[in-house]
């Protein structure tokens, strides 16, 4: 509509020889850019600028209230020889492995069950499976903190019924990682299962019927039909959980305390970054951690993409 009007105006004005008008295609281009500019302006200010500024700060030493001191690559050098950083890397990967791999399998199984025809009350189950995802991270962490308590925790109470002694969850590496991983699994298994469910529902039923006629068992159908057909979704969830899982922060901070615990057992990379910036006021060092974290996430995501690509494709 609008372009027709503009076209008419353009035609009338070219009749007066002095006035110069833009070509219609140029006007289209300009209005197109104007329409998408609000998002990009905001993204530029709140997205791109902080990223670039962080890179800039990572070459300085700065305590935010004082002056900036240019130190070149010193922060990165310190980072690679910093045992705490490597420990936080190990912690993050350990928590990721314990939380993501079982979680995605569980999500797939839950989605498979939810997809069955015989299940009554599907809507209710789908809703309740997704519910943990919308709860407050801090509230959940506080409650799990109590569940995993050393002397009065519910979990230790149940274990004591089986004769297992009180486990000091907070005081050991594995205990802390399992506790934090449990919180992550609890929160995200519903989310991933709903995604898998939508993928499962898009698989045409006649494939299964044809396979049953051909004599394939349920297991064979699962591996030969289901998995290849939802492969894109699997790749999607793996990448998403990689990116999210490497940045775990709130659960670790509340469970292990601000410093990651006496052994730094709960110190994830993001928690280390936060500590360096807001507790020790070493913003330059924290910025270098941020950028190295980014690189690690990119590399790890590419690695996971490579692995999941090896699932037989449906084509």
């Amino acid at each position, binding site marked *: 509509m609008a372009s027709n009007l503009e076209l008419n105006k353009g035609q009338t004005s070219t009749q007066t020889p002095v006035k110069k008008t833009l070509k219609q295609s140029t006007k289209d281009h300009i209005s197109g850019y104007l329409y998408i500019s609000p998002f990009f302006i905001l993204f530029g200010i709140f997205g791109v600028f902080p990223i670039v500024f962080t890179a800039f700060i990572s070459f300085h030493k700065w305590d935010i*209230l004082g002056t900036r001191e240019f130190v070149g690559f010193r922060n990165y050098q310190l980072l690679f020889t910093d045992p705490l950083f490597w420990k936080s890397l190990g912690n993050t990967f350990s928590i990721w492995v314990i939380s993501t791999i079982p979680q995605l399998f569980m999500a797939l199984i839950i989605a498979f069950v939810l997809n069955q025809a015989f299940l009554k009350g599907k809507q209710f189950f789908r809703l309740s499976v997704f519910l943990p995802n919308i709860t407050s991270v801090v509230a959940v962490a506080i409650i799990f903190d109590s569940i995993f308590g050393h002397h009065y925790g519910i979990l230790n109470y149940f274990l004591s019924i089986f004769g297992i002694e009180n486990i000091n969850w907070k*005081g050991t590496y594995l205990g802390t990682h399992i506790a934090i991983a449990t919180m992550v699994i609890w929160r995200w298994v519903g989310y991933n299962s709903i995604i898998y469910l939508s993928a499962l529902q898009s698989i045409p039923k006649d494939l299964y019927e044809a396979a049953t006629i051909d004599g394939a068992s349920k297991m064979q159908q699962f591996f030969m039909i289901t998995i290849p057909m939802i492969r894109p979704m699997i790749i999607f969830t793996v990448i998403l959980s990689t990116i999210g899982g490497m940045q775990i922060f709130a659960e670790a901070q509340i469970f292990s305390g601000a410093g990651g615990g006496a052994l730094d057992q709960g110190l994830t990379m993001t928690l280390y970054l936060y500590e360096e910036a807001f507790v*020790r006021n070493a913003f330059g060092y924290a910025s270098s951690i941020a950028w190295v974290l980014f690189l690690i996430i990119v590399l790890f995501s590419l690695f996971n993409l490579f692995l999941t690509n090896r699932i037989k494709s449906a084509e």
Partner: protein
Amino acid sequence: MKKFKLHKVVLVFVSILLLIGVVACSSDESSGETETKDGKVKLTVWLWTGMGIDDQIKQYAEENNIEVDIQIAEFADVHTNLTTALAAGSGAPDISAVEVKGIEKMKANPQHFHNLLDLGADEISGDYLDWKWKQAMTPDGKHLLGLPTDIGPQAMAYRVDVFEEAGLPTDREEVAELIKTWDDFIRVGEEIKAKTGKAMIDTPTGLYSVIEGQANEKYYDAEGNIIVKDNAQIKKAYDYAMEVIEKGLTPGYEQWSTEWSTGMANADYATILTPAWMQQNIMNNAPDAAGLWDVTALPEGSGNWGGSFLTIPKESKHPEEAYKLIKWLLSPEQQLVTFEKFGNFPSTPAIYDSEAIQNHTNEYFNNAPVGQIFSEAALQVKEIQEGPDSIQIETFMTDAVTRVMDGQAEPEDSWNTALENIDRQLNR
């Protein structure tokens, strides 16, 4: 054509409405407004929840014809917001509360605050406890960042029923006589463990934090060097913490966790080294244990935990007015009022002899004369040189204690790791 024109008009109308909405909804934040329309001075004050001084501030504002805008946020947020506002160069209030943990960091950058000495603060320095006054002063003594609000002098809260079960005296004077040194403390702990099976203290880190503060120097010397390695008092504090762990005298609860609160109610431990403000926490966590707790003095001196200041950031356009407000609010008379209303322990020794404080007892603690006990403790707190990284060093040292508590390290190794951490992490 007509249909299209109407569409266009509606579009323009809606976008104007949105624009008005955006403009109208932005409240005029304090950073722009420092005077109200009739020329009255307007001061912005940042406090955290539970400080208890809002009413008195409003009273002052009414009596002195100024306006105050009190903005209350969470404790940690106040400090973060203040740091951000100071770094950004705008948005800081006229008066901000800063706790003793935060003041150390601020002292490293005193240029962000008005120097209260320039506003006449040395006239009133005599009203306040020396060690508290020094906490807000830069090491060279030239720049005062804030006036003291309350303090947290420490005493020993003990379970009367546990002491009785162990056949020990329960009267607070007798307990103070019984436990005059930390060796006595350990000996009594062993007795209690033998006769009742209960632990002596909630956590070894609590013990460590008190003993380390009982000498003249802690983490820094007068020149600002870190002296953790060579300071005998710190080693002493650490060693006592180790002894308490080895002899099984503590269950190692994390303070402020839900288990710690449960332990309070169940008498899992016989003593807590408690600052004045923690009385409220004990009362709230273990309401059924009223009358079973009592309070007496700490062995070998006293300690302080917490306490805050009111500062005037440099961005304030009315430093004189702000100074007058905080001078009034934190004067001995007004601190007495705050104490009577909320129990915040005053930092002005002149009123310690007042009836209100001397006669203040706490029914929950077996009617102990807590006003007297804590004021005596307050007068005994040693003046200790702190530094910008004191909090970090404290964390490293208490982590060392916790590691041994959790059975994850030997005392010697844990100590060495702590020293290594201090060297490495604080040089960035």
